[in-house]
């Protein structure tokens, strides 16, 4: 009787482990993709104030890409166009 009981416990333990592993993998894949390099993404331009305001904090600072998950190439273009909009007092 004692042996049978032990086996059951082991099986349950393994099942739980497999579920845990699945959960962790799905969590890793949940990283956000860059919103500006998708298909049909809006063009980055210093005249497009609505777009630029999404990537600016309340105090008018440029948000870092680790928060907005913008790719490095697009972040460079974003920061350039934000600075141009600042000269014209649009942002």
């Amino acid at each position, binding site marked *: 009787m004692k042996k049978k009981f032990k086996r059951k416990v082991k099986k349950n333990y393994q099942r739980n482990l497999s579920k845990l592993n699945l959960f962790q993998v799905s969590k890793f894949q949940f990283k956000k993709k860059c919103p500006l390099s998708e298909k049909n993404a809006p063009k980055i*331009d210093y005249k497009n104030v609505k777009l630029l305001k999404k990537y600016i904090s309340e105090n008018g600072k440029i948000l870092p890409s680790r928060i907005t998950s913008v790719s490095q190439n697009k972040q460079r273009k974003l920061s350039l166009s934000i600075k141009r909009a600042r000269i*014209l*007092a*649009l942002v």
Partner: protein
Amino acid sequence: MSLYEHTIIAKQNHSADQLKSLKTKYSKIIEKNEGEIIKIDDWGLLNLSHEINKNKKGNYIHFKLKGNGLTVSELEKNEKIDKNLLRFLTVRVKKFDLDKDYFKQENNFNKYDKKKTERMVNNEKEI
């Protein structure tokens, strides 16, 4: 020859006639110095996001032009002296997108746009 986008901010107390004279003045300067105007946009009176020389509003005029270094340098030389202007900006571009007017839509559908954007924001929050 390369393509440039050029914007001017004029002071807010100008009348429509004065703005027209400004436009003609600078378009003449462009055409004299080997340049060519493709389009002129009026963005109208906009609120400045921060004050420039104690001005809170400005009249925006936007040029799209073909030219070389001479035209741009001559333009900016004249604009630096001009006391009617607050600021100017020239940007070299590879292509003009003539279909999009970012500032015309806001003026025509201001109220509707605000409601729409509010709805959009609310929807995004729910998702």
